[in-house]
């Protein structure tokens, strides 16, 4: 077998698939072509905001090396777009006029930023042309634009209270920019977080120097800068938020037009089954942001609660890993093994962890229920299914808030602000669907010093010298028998003869004895 595999798109998910397919390429089972629209090989988009505030370099974002891949025999086409897919001939037509045949075609076209409908911005969804001083934050060029503003100490307006917007705002503020976040609703992360967590989060952002403009509806942009660029964001109450750069962070939308153009079924994304195959098209697959797992079987239980693409990279990487193994088996001719490969399990709802240096926040699942919502808590609790339980801890004064929404002890939602260890633990429990300890407060104490056990030195039977296994009582006995220095005690009991860490404790016991003797 020598299958020709073509991957459309060269972002982080495509890069992972390429890595997974390299063994098959090296073994001569497959030929691989990757088509990337950008001039660079894949890099880590998650870190574009870090690059935009000058915290890291473009090199440190790279996920693939085009030269190394070419040396391995991969056909890497950079700076080229796929214009059209000809399914009948099984070939793709590229913007440089060339064509490429495929036996298997993988869409990894990702997504593009949502540009809201604002006066002053041309909202062509397929190729938005943004005016000077307005940018999204998706690629290296966007990062450059932000970088200039941050380096110049300019005023940055971030439109959107999602996690990427908040991360950008925090990083830019920390690096010296004046930053305002404009979002609708009373608090940021409105789709994910509850009221309490949102309030504590917003307060924390303000403490970090970010101005928060909530309950705001933007209507247009003003271009009154000397160079004709952005000067203010206009709101529906007639007010304006002045700034030098507008960063649009209003979410992303899957890039499906190429798939639609060749007649594949799409909804939010390109529709694929549990083997990541496009509906009714065994030669074509889709992974990552552009793919929507929803199988053609209307009875499928796994698809009943399916949500569209999450916009997070983790699920895409898991798909790339799975598809790499699957296509590798097919290319090697092991069709039966490929058919036996267990389907990729359904994704858990995404976990959002704020990437920031000064703040800690994690949120996942559904956090809408409140502890006193009897009706909400009992909803769905039928046929022996347990009801929802809420445990909550709020300390807004100190920037801390935790909410755990569980059913049968397993998390369905979590919010943690300002408690790093608790956040890490809860996220792990959520992702593993593991049961929480019945005493939920255990999870709140991980960040405190009393997570540690008591020293226990007061108990005379407790061990003072672990290395030699000598108890406090034995040392007291030696002191009563006349030992008055650590070395005498060591000689008599072997205490303190290993790591020496208990010398101070032995000294303390000697002193205690002689104090008691002298006061007697």
């Amino acid at each position: 077998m020598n299958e020709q595999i073509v991957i459309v798109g060269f972002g982080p998910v495509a890069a992972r698939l390429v890595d997974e397919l390299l063994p098959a390429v090296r073994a001569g089972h497959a030929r691989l072509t990757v088509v990337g629209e950008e001039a660079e090989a894949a890099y880590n988009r998650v870190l574009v905001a870090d690059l935009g505030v000058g915290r890291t370099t473009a090199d440190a974002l790279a996920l693939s090396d085009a030269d190394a891949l070419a040396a391995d025999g991969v056909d890497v086409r950079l700076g080229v777009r796929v214009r059209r897919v000809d399914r009948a001939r099984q070939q793709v037509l590229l913007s440089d006029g060339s064509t490429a045949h495929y036996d298997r075609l993988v869409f990894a076209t990702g997504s593009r930023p949502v540009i809201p409908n604002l006066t002053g911005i041309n909202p062509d969804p397929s190729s938005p042309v943004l005016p000077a001083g307005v940018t999204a934050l998706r690629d290296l060029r966007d990062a450059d634009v932000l970088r200039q503003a941050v380096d110049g100490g300019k005023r940055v307006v971030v439109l959107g209270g999602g996690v990427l917007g908040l991360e950008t705002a925090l990083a830019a503020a920390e690096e010296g920019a004046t930053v305002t976040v404009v979002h609708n609703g009373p608090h940021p992360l409105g789709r994910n977080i509850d009221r309490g967590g949102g309030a504590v989060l917003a307060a924390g952002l303000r403490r970090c120097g970010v101005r928060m403009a909530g309950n705001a509806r933007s209507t247009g942009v003003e271009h009154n800068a000397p160079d004709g660029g952005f000067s203010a964001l206009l709101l529906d109450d007639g007010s304006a938020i002045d700034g030098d750069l507008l960063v649009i962070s209003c979410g992303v939308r899957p890039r499906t037009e190429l798939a639609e153009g060749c007649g594949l079924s799409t909804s939010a994304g390109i529709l694929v089954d549990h083997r990541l195959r496009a509906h009714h098209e065994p030669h074509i697959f889709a992974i990552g942001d552009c793919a929507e797992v929803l199988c053609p079987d209307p009875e499928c239980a796994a698809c009943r609660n399916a949500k569209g693409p999450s916009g997070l990279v983790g699920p895409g990487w898991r798909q790339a890993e799975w598809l790499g193994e699957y296509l590798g088996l097919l290319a090697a001719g092991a069709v039966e093994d490929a058919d036996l490969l267990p389907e990729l399990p359904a994704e858990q709802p995404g976990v959002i962890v704020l990437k920031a240096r000064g703040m800690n926040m994690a949120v996942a699942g559904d956090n809408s229920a409140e502890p006193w919502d009897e009706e909400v808590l009992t909803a769905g609790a039928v046929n022996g299914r347990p009801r929802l339980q809420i445990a909550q801890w709020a300390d807004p004064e100190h920037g801390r808030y935790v909410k755990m929404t569980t059913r049968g002890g397993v998390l369905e939602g979590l919010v943690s602000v300002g408690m790093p260890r608790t956040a890490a633990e809860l996220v792990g429990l959520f992702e593993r669907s593991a049961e929480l300890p019945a005493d939920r407060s255990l999870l709140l104490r991980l960040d405190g010093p009393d997570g540690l056990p008591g020293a226990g030195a007061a108990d005379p039977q407790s061990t003072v010298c672990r290395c030699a296994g000598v108890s406090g009582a034995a040392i007291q006995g030696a002191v009563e028998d006349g030992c008055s220095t650590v070395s005498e005690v060591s000689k008599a009991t072997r205490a303190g003869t290993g790591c020496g860490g208990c010398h101070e404790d032995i000294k303390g016991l000697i002193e205690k004895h002689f104090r008691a003797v002298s006061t007697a």
Partner: protein
Amino acid sequence: MTKSADTHCPYCALQCAMTLTSPAELAPATQPGPVPVTALPAPASPAAAPAAPAALLEVQGRDFPTNRGGLCRKGWTSATLLNHPGRITEPLLKGPDGVHRPISWEHALDLAVSAVKDARARYGADAVGVFGGGGLTNEKAYMLGKFARLALGTSRIDYNGRFCMSSAAAAGMRAFGVDRGLPFPLEALDTASTIMMLGSNVAETMPPFVQHLKGTRDAGGLIVVDPRRSATAAFTSDGGGLHLQPLPGTDLTLLLGISHVVIHENLVDTAFIEERTSGYSAVVRSVNSFWPERVQSLTGVPAELIRETARRLAAGARQGGSYILTGRGVEQHIDGTDTATAAINLSLLLGLPGSARSGYGTLTGQGNGQGGREHGQKADQLPGYRKITDPAARAHVAGVWGVPEELIPGPGLPAVQLLKSLGKPDGVRCLFVHASNIAVASPDANAVIDGLRSLDFLMVCDFFMSETAAEADLILPVLQWAEEEGTLTNLEGRVLRRRRALTPPAGARSELWIMARLAEALDAPSSYSEDPETVFEELRLASAGGLADYSGIDYAMLDRGEAAYWPYPAGSTGTPRLFQDRFAHPDGKAVMTPVTPRRRRTPAANPDPAAKTMTLITGRLLEHYQSGAQTRRVTELLASQPEAQMQIHPAAAEAMGITAGSLVSLANERGEVVCRAELSTAIRPETVFLPFHFPELESANRLTEAATDPVSGMPEFKFNKVWVRPVAVPLSSNVLQTTEAS
């Protein structure tokens, strides 16, 4: 007459210096006695162990750079085993009734020789196998490799170091071109600003080591990575440093996350990377997808701690020095080599190896775990850390041995594969075991015991009736540490002298003597001296020009107290600190290899609705050493830790109805362990811990998987799924004490 000898402790790789003094030459015990093997004794009845006779030797700690006069309980009580009533002092042959009875040495050697000849004649030379140990002196380890290849003519030799150091060794070879556990003297740690220890619990495994952490703890710079708040991790509280508590099996991911921060916060030592390493950009690409918040989700370690760790390591390197040390906790995995590689990559990013006051090291476990992995007990290796597949290496060693090169067999099977082959077609039919208790210490121990029972002939050299010896057709009684001369190489790569303080029991023999006699009877080519110094002189020649070159070291120099660190070519003064000028690859550079976590096999489903699936990790207790074959026979140590206990978090225990001291069962598709529960908040709630020092129903390795690392052959000891449930048993009954008499 008072006689004394300056020697080193018989147990771990720290090789604490000690002086043994005998008030007089007492007659050692000769008659075999009862053997205290535990299998769930009734609670609080450890005193049932037989009262030991007065020790023949007095033990004193001796001042030395590594232990500074300190010893732990194991060292202090080590002399009580010399005249232990259970000591084997005559060759024992198993009768058809399964009972071992004394026979003469002549008879014993005849049996061994005919078993070898028989297996060879029927199945070929590779039907004879040898399993060695990291506790053997350099002389014995060297001779065992030579004996196997020339006298037995077999390629099938490997040793228990495969279960211990193989992953770190493979990673060290890959990155540095050489594997010396600590490429610097231990004292170098004293002044370090930051020390990160991963998967190592030195406070229990080698307590006197802890003295070298004091300066760093006082400076708040100790970072311990362990899923448990171990005794070592507890040192980080009260300002001593940081404890990172990752989910078991996620160490590699955590290390990638720390490396990510080093790269993204511009903490890389770029001049070092440029001049002294290759492979940097591929490593950068491989860690770019492991940003701290993602790693937090995968490991459970907060992103801020990941960042803080990276910053402290970088800051320490600019101050008093930073060290990264790995132990078995991160190495004993099917991705152990990659995990150790990730730790090395992190240290290279920071420029630690090769600098004068920073570095990377792995903490060797067994007494001669370092020397034992250098001189030919490994399946793929010849003396001097030479590759058995390298024609030049073969020619050199063949020259020293005075045999044609083609007489040296090719590479054999690594330990797990060797043990899996026992009794199988084309497998080993006749096995010699030295200094190893594989029935307890091997992964999937039940399958190993089945393998031992399927052999045509099993010979075990030991001084106690270990669980492996109990399976043997023939047991040959050998010497203990205080009865022999030799050398060991400690965790620093420093060669030490072991000295005789006592006349051995009349019926016991050195393994060198045994190999010499067997070689003679088998008409083996070359020579097999029974004198340790003569063997060492031959080892010097065989190792000359190899990576682990001992050619400049002799007994007289060691007896003068000279600190001899290998490589020590003749005419040099040895190498206390490696990599100052170059790494051992041909171009002198360290090689950075990108590594990423692999997906793991899905474990078998839990068939028991009453049991909860948890993650099992294993490790050591301060009181016991390895399989416990020795320390379980020391009254004081057994009284302190008489049985295995499963450590479990109180929250997890409560949910399952497990209380402190109640019996629990841990099972999986490989076997079952029944023991008592110990409740502790030091462990993560989804994880349980078992010590691996105990046999039979309490044998942790009944549950561990014999899947191996593709590079090193290391089995998966530290990440296994178990089904845990409480066991309702009337404690007054003896139903669980079925094997007490074994």
